[in-house]
């Protein structure tokens, strides 16, 4: 081995330009962080409050400290884009029967063992293929494809918060609404900012126990409950999804505690979707959720007085439809992601005139 040859081959005489420079169009300074001594920063976006050294990233993998300034690496960096029925998110009381121009970037601030989209959510932005879709272009595409809303989904919009804020503004400028699909693991100040910009937020409440959040989600329950209460106070339309995982979050006691908390803190009108689990990612050892388990969850929550409890991922189930809590007639009939009929008149039951909460027309 000749040392000169080694130097010529792999030892650099000087620093080369970083390949990351080619990604400059995706990089914006983060909105929520504080600077610390020695070029460190503390992220203030989610409850983890990652303290991050220079050249390092936080838990989400998409925000990086560069010389003491903190940057999002995923602004306009869309790795998944589809036109989906809004019911797929699911939103059942927001623009039913319409399509949502749905986008997501890499990254997530939790690591759920049952994640269906782990191949983007658990990756860094440079590890997945992405396109450049700046806010104005995103809004224009939503218009072009006759989508009245943009949905921020697939991974975790909290980690691409700056993009959501800018895109929601661009969308509103052309009459396109914004709907966020999130785990709700976010600090209060950025969440309030988000609520000021978007029209609806669906929160994936993963369970109603800290144990599940610690062991399966790698997160915490309490901040998510705080986030739900904040969304309620801000007046932003909110729905909740609860993925029922066999043996891990499917006890009667947990469903009852959940229902009581929702009714007391958010009110009986918040739609609550019990969704069917399918084995994926790190939870392949469990079976899909039995439908009777979902029906038991719904029955418990109905009995506690919640008005809009749904069953999801079971196409054709009667609990996909919306029923008037007063006269019990179906006001929105669904099959899978399709709205078959609507019996609403200006947000009221056509039969008994009972107001049905939601954003029905966009």
């Amino acid at each position, binding site marked *: *081995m000749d040392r000169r040859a080694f130097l010529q081959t792999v030892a*650099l005489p000087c*620093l*080369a330009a970083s390949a990351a420079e080619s990604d400059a169009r995706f990089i914006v300074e983060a909105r929520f962080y504080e600077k610390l001594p020695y070029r460190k920063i503390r992220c203030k976006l989610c409850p983890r409050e990652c303290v991050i050294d220079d*050249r390092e990233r*936080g838990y989400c993998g998409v925000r990086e400290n560069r010389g003491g300034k903190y940057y999002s690496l995923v602004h306009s960096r869309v790795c998944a884009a589809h036109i989906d029925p809004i019911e797929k998110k699911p939103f059942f009381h927001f623009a039913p029967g319409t399509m949502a121009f749905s986008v997501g970037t890499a990254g997530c601030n939790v*690591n759920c063992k049952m994640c269906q989209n782990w191949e983007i959510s658990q990756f860094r932005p440079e590890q997945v293929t992405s396109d450049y879709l700046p806010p104005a272009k995103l809004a224009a595409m939503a218009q072009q494809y006759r989508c009245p809303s943009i949905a921020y989904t697939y991974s975790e919009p909290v980690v691409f918060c700056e993009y959501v804020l800018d895109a929601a503004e661009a969308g509103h400028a052309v009459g396109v609404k914004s709907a966020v699909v999130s785990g709700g693991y976010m600090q209060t100040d950025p969440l309030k900012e988000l609520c000021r910009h978007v029209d609806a937020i669906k929160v994936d409440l993963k369970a109603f126990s800290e144990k599940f959040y610690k062991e399966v989600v790698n997160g915490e329950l309490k901040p998510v409950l705080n986030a739900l209460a904040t969304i309620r106070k801000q007046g932003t339309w909110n729905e909740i999804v609860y993925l029922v995982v066999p043996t891990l979050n499917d006890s009667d006691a947990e469903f009852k505690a959940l229902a009581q908390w929702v009714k007391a803190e958010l009110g009986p009108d918040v739609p609550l979707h019990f969704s069917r689990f399918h084995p994926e990612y790190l939870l392949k050892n469990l079976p899909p959720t039995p439908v009777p388990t979902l029906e038991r969850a719904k029955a418990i929550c109905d009995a506690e007085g919640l008005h809009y409890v749904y069953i999801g991922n079971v196409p054709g189930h009667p609990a996909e439809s919306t029923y008037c809590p007063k006269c019990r007639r179906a006001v929105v009939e669904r099959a899978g992601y399709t709205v078959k009929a609507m019996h609403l008149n200006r947000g009221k039951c056509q039969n008994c005139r009972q107001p049905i909460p939601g954003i029905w027309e966009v």
Partner: protein
Amino acid sequence: MHRKAGTSRRNLLRVCVGGALSLDAAPPEKSKVAIARDPRIRPAGGAPDSARLLKVLDRAMQLLYGLDSPAECWRQVARPGEVVGLKVNCLSGKGASTSTVLVEAICERLAEAGIAQSDIVIWDRLNSDLESGGFRVTSRKDKIRAIGNDEAGYYPELSVYGSVGSLVSNTLVKTCHAIINLPVLKDHGIVGVTLALKNLFGAIHNPNKYHIDAGDPYVADAFMLPPIRQKVRLTICDAITAQYEGGPSYMPQWSWPFNGVMASRDPVALDYTGWQIIEKKRAEKGMKTLRDVKREPAYIARAADAQHKLGTNDPRLIEVLEA
């Protein structure tokens, strides 16, 4: 928490045969950690002197393997025809990255042991990390390669152990038969220290997920991923300039010239020994212990436990050889 000694044939006989046989009590085999130093390794505090560093490396290897010639030592590490990966640590750029001069010396000795240049791959997470550490990225297969995982990609099958589920670098899984692990002796602001075990976070696609709880059990679990555990054969820790606070970023005010290298086939023993060196320097400087600042590297004990058995953290079972 110390690793319990496994059941050897001798122990088995003792248990099963009882007094029928009289056997000498044999002490458990110790893990060796070789430390070689030269106070003049960096003339005027600049880049390491390559000739002196080569001698330091040779001394460490000969101490570790108990052999007279460096080439003999390196023939214990890899055979001709095998592709050898050198996992450097360049996240922090020049100052706190694996020295190019040390890598050069290792390449020289590997070549003498019959490893072709085309069978040596220097690698880390990102091409940009390698470049900032002073390496020129090249994937030409007729020479020594230097390539980041971002270019080489990740093996698409999820590798799972305990709390960790990750894709592992193609360089490690597909390209290399053997890995020589080349961390730097330094503090880490979240997990306490970053040495042999932690350096393999650079082999997985999602290390950011595993810094919580001071890396315990994640650092140990990641090292247990089958392709990693099976291929890492040796750790040579760059301890020319060490850092006792402020890591992993380079903080010259908390660095000191240790002027040496550490070598071990037991990553846990090396980590334990390196951790103690850092604690000693922190004490000299009047700083609190890593436990007191809530970043004791508990993952080192975890790596030694009965589930992991990656090595020993029991000082009674670690033989530190110094020269």
